[in-house]
């Protein structure tokens, strides 16, 4: 695969990429061990301790219902990550299939798929998502699917471009002359050689999916309270921002760090895969 020695060595030397990787790994651990790490259950209400500022018993303070902010943030990490991964998984799958078909077969097929991509790109995607969610109702699964089916266009174009160039290489011609079928050529010869840029796009895509999920939850059509998510914590925090800054600042920082982590990792992978592309 493309994860050869050279790639690993360049990644190691790339400080930004390693920092990004560190953030992502920490987030993963937090999400997986959420129950062990959080001091309180995320929906544990303590009406005697409302809007308490950060103290030793509540390191990041409590909200209007006296719930522990740190515990809710720890549980929110899982939401962000799962939305990010599932949404990107869906969009990468759609993008790879359409891009592969378009690039490999060309002609009329290519024109139809690429015009469809253009049409999809015409919609301001956030408002498209808003409209669809308003229609199908907000839930974490709907969000994942809707983000996935509205963000595959970049991957499709990328995969198509890779297919167009790899299709003309001699080893593909050799496979054809041996009598290999289309499926074998697409999946065994071309796709493995086209994966590197897809990996970069997917990593960067997770960052934007996390951001969209936070945005939707902030607007109240994402993850529904009482389930915690960084976005809906921000919403609750904005009403009390003058008296309880901790309600907004910590979830905001979590979103910032996560998005930055994935972006740094994605760009690090891109630079390490092909050092010539480096600016």
């Amino acid at each position: 695969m493309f994860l050869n020695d050279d790639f690993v060595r360049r990644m190691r030397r790339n400080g930004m990429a390693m920092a990004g990787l560190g953030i992502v790994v920490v987030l993963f651990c937090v999400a997986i061990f959420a129950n062990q790490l959080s001091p309180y259950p995320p929906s544990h209400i303590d009406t005697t301790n409302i809007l308490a500022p950060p103290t030793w018993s509540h390191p990041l303070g409590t909200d209007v219902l006296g719930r522990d902010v740190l515990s809710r943030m720890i549980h929110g990490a899982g939401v962000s990550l799962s939305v990010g991964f599932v949404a990107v998984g869906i969009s990468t799958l759609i993008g790879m299939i359409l891009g592969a078909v378009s690039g490999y077969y060309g002609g009329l097929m290519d024109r139809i798929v690429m015009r469809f991509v253009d049409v999809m790109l015409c919609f301001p995607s956030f408002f498209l998502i808003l409209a669809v969610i308003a229609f199908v109702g907000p839930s974490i699964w709907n969000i994942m699917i809707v983000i996935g089916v509205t963000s595959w266009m970049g991957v499709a174009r990328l995969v198509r471009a890779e297919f167009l160039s790899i299709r003309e290489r001699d080893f593909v011609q050799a496979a054809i002359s041996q009598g290999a079928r289309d499926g074998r050529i697409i999946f065994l010869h071309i796709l493995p050689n086209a994966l590197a840029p897809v990996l970069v796009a997917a990593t960067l895509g997770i960052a934007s999916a996390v951001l969209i999920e936070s945005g939707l939850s902030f607007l109240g059509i994402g993850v529904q309270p009482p389930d915690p998510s960084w976005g809906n914590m921000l919403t609750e925090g904005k009403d009390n921002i003058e008296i309880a800054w901790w309600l907004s600042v910590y979830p905001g920082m979590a979103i910032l760090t996560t998005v930055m982590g994935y972006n740094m990792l994605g760009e690090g992978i891109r630079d390490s895969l092909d050092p010539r592309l480096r600016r």
Partner: protein
Amino acid sequence: MSQSSPLLEVKDLKKHFPIQRGVFRKVVGHVKAVDGISFTIEPGETVGLVGESGCGKTTVGRMIMGAYRPTNGEIWFKPEDDVERINLAALTPSEMKPYRRYAQMIFQDPFASLDPRMTVREILAEPLVVNKLAKGAELEGRVRELIEMVGLKIQHLNRYPHAFSGGQRQRISVARAMALFPRLLVADEPTSALDVSVQAQIVNLALEIQQRMGIAYLFISHDLGLVRHFSKKIVLMYVGRVVEYAPAENLFGRPRHPYTEALMSNVPSTKPELMGRKIILKGDPADPINPPPGCPFHPRCLYAQKLCSEDYPPLREIGPQHFVACHFAESLDLRGCDALGCVI
């Protein structure tokens, strides 16, 4: 019956690539990459297809392999001795599939012709797996035979192509092409990306395999000296057309086309006193989009006369099996490699 028809007969083969401009992709002209060429290959013999860069040699090879559909012409191929020959040019890609294994190809660029994500074992096993010819232990045995046949070792099977030199990669390409026991091997400049010392090794390997397996070769090259070495017949192309087509000994003994003479005069010589006779052609090869009227070679020809710029000289037989496209083939006294003392 089987003796009478050749393995491959190419008749009046043409490939014109349309040039499209503008939003509506209007066709504004054609690149006449191959413009009517004919030749035959008998079973087990080697034919050299020679010409300078851009003359259409590779396009001919790719049409025989079915990578391009000919604009015009016929490609008669006889996949097995007791099978009727078929016109590949008339088949759709799916109809062609059962015949593909009988013709295989070696490519010019050894760095592009092997899948970088596959080990040598997977590369050599693929043709056998795809055609369901072997599996399991038998497959492994065949793969080992193939790698040893081309002079590499069994432990090389686990490596990826990037671990090999150009010459070794070309050996792997040869092994892959031989996996299906083809009747015809199209070798598209297999040595031009290699060092001279390695070139000889690859050519010798190919010849050794040819003798053992009785495969016919279409050897595409720009190097007359190299092709002379082992070709029985030579097809010389210039801007999409055949200028001379003859058995090798006749061509090198007495070329009949000025272009052939010019090429031969540039092959290194063992008689330095003759070196002064090197013919340097002026200008560039004709533009295949817009070839000059008459003979396409006339602007560069040392012997050109008025007729040459007016009439296209058709390919005609002037000796046994010797075809030339020149108005003055009989009257010119041209010097071939034998007179010039070419090396090889």
